[in-house]
């Protein structure tokens, strides 16, 4: 009687302990692979996203050409920053190449963690003018020094259901109620209006838009589209916060209106996956999200609405730009080998090949390529979105900025604070950051 209980306790304890050990070991596994001189293997830390999978498919070619093996460690976004920082602070890094999210750029460059690439670029005559300007300004050069080559873009855009926005019944009802045509909106006011109208008409079968209100990144990046498209900004020209001016408050009021009256119940707690699933299941008419989601949503194995989805600029025109850049850590062992790979993976042929497999381009010549355009006609629109988008300010405290912004936006959305109070708090706290 007592015996079996005892043994159960013992087993439970052991299993718990073992599982803890197991997860601990995994963390360590990535680092120790590199040793010996004359780099035979490059270690790269990347995020587990489609573009990384595409790079993985290409590396066999590189190994064949150069004899250098490439080991890609792909981890979740949330684990990347805390994995990278200790590596970059150390005197040597176990990563030969890293990818840098645009909102780490300020932090990484001001801390001096990234190797300037200008001498490599000049020596090998690598042409950086082929990159879209908004991409190169964001994940390429900082104050005239090139630290990164733009890897892929994730500018945000409006993704919408063609069949809903062309629905004759909805269109005629909208015309009758508001006296104007229901079409892809040009302004945020009209967008929120249409979004609420669709939810009112269709109830919980079809929401006008699905939103992501989870702290800190999802809500921050989504709302920044509203802010930029309303003509607002985080910092003014003089570097003082202007986020709590009239445009900012208007943007937040519209955001809350859409969240409360059009988006599915519980959107205030949605992360990216939850929101994506609502759209992919066919329960939402629009979604402000990364432009490369269009390919995923038009893929029948991942979405129920394949073929019914299209892309447009965020209403109001200025969306949030985003992108990743390749960089070589200053403490990397063999920078020559790292650059060799970087130069190769970003060459026109490989960049084009990646784009053809569904990667998000950053080079103008890839965007303009006939084969690429033949396969992805909508890249014309994507290029326009990127050209007109704006990035999160490059400051070394961008992750902190996002945290503060996310917290206060979530307060405002959940009714804990008024829009003005929330944005005043943001302004006060981000002033100290810069």
């Amino acid at each position, binding site marked *: 009687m007592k015996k079996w209980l005892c043994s159960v306790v013992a087993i439970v304890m052991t299993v718990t302990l073992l599982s803890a050990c197991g997860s601990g070991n995994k963390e360590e596994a990535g680092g120790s692979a590199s040793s010996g001189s004359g780099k035979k293997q490059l270690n790269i830390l990347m995020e587990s996203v489609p573009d990384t999978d595409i790079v993985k498919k290409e590396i066999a070619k590189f190994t064949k050409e150069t004899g250098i093996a490439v080991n890609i460690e792909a981890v979740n976004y949330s684990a990347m920053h805390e994995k990278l*920082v200790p590596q970059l*602070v150390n005197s040597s890094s176990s990563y030969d190449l890293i990818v840098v999210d645009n909102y780490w750029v300020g932090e990484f460059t001001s801390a001096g963690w990234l190797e300037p690439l200008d001498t490599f670029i000049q020596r090998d005559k690598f042409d950086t003018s082929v990159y879209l300007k908004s991409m190169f300004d964001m994940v390429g050069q900082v104050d005239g020094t090139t630290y990164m080559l733009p890897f892929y873009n994730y500018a945000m855009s409006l993704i919408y259901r063609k069949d809903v926005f062309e629905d004759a019944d909805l269109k005629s009802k909208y015309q009758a109620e508001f006296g104007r045509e229901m079409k892809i909106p040009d302004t945020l006011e009209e967008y929120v209006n249409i979004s609420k109208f669709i939810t009112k008409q269709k109830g919980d079968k079809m929401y006008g838009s699905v939103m992501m209100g989870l702290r800190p990144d999802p809500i921050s990046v989504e709302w920044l589209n509203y802010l930029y498209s309303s003509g607002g900004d985080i910092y003014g020209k003089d570097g003082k916060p202007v986020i709590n001016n009239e445009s900012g408050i208007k943007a937040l009021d519209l955001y809350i209106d859409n969240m409360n009256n059009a988006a599915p119940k*519980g959107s205030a707690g949605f992360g990216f996956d*939850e929101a994506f*699933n609502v759209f992919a299941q066919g329960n939402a008419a629009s979604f402000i999200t990364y432009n490369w989601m269009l390919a995923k949503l038009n893929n029948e194995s991942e979405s129920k609405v394949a073929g019914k989805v299209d892309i447009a600029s965020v209403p109001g025109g200025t969306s949030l730009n985003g992108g990743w850049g390749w960089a070589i850590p200053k403490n990397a062992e063999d920078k020559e080998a790292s650059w060799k790979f970087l130069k190769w993976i970003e060459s026109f042929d490989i960049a084009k090949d990646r784009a053809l497999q569904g990667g998000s381009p950053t080079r103008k010549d890839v965007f303009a390529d006939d084969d690429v355009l033949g396969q992805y006609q909508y890249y014309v629109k994507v290029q326009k979105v990127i050209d007109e988008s704006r990035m999160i300010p490059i400051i070394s405290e961008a992750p902190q900025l996002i*945290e503060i912004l996310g917290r206060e936006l979530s*307060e405002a959305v*959940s*009714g*804990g604070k008024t829009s003005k109070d929330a944005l005043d708090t943001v302004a006060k706290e981000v002033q100290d950051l810069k």
Partner: protein
Amino acid sequence: MLSQKRKQFLIFFVPSVLLLLLTVVYPLLYSLVMSFTSSSLKIKGMGSFIGFDNYIRVFKDAYFLKSAWTTVIFTVIVVTLEFLFGLIVAILLNRITYGKKVFFTIIIVPMLITPVAVGLIWRLLLHPDLGIINYMLSLVGIEGQAWLGDAKWAMITVVLVDIWHQVPFMILLLLAGLVSLPVEPYEAAEIDGANRLQTFWNVTLPLMKATIVVAVLFRVITAFKTYDLIYVLTKGGPGTTTEVISYHIYKQAYTFLDTGYASALSYVLLLVVLMLSAVFVKVSRGKA
């Protein structure tokens, strides 16, 4: 020549002490030193010594104070409910004769799942639009809630998930206590004509006191440190309604990279937990 005892001492004791020193004592001391410095992940080395500045900052940090209050509420609610529920189930399990092992095995399963997996599973189940819970509720005519997306419900939801995850621990400990109770006091109580409630109140509870104190103390400490569930379920939102101390500390260390301040916060948390433990130990020794 080493005696047999000496050998055993060296083989079993020394390695474990070394391991403890390395994995527990060293980090503890390191972070204690760190809590008096301006240490940050952004700079090499320790940063400069700044005395008690970090500790003074702790008590001026409005977000910390709010998260402390949230943690207290969370801990009180989950531990109370888990204790009551755990005790009831343990007593029931102790009484039945058939199928005990089957019930026990099923009940223990949640405890074997890591908190992050628990959080992810519940996020799926609780999805207001696509999740199975609101669907089930709609079948019986109850309107589903927004759960984690609603400031009024978020805390309750986190509490419910935590109860689901942690009740087995309570049951396990309390049942172990019940099983090992002596039979004589019960026989005596029966002879004296005590009814069931009286027996429970005057025999079972006093005998169980030590077990109960340990079980509740363990849970209070782990509930105070709850981090994974919050991280996966709500990230402290909506607003700051579910932001607990450990999550706040995590952000100071890994978002704000302020390891000196985060260490100071951790030490304040450690002190509180130590004081709680002392109180519990005192209570258990008091009248037992």
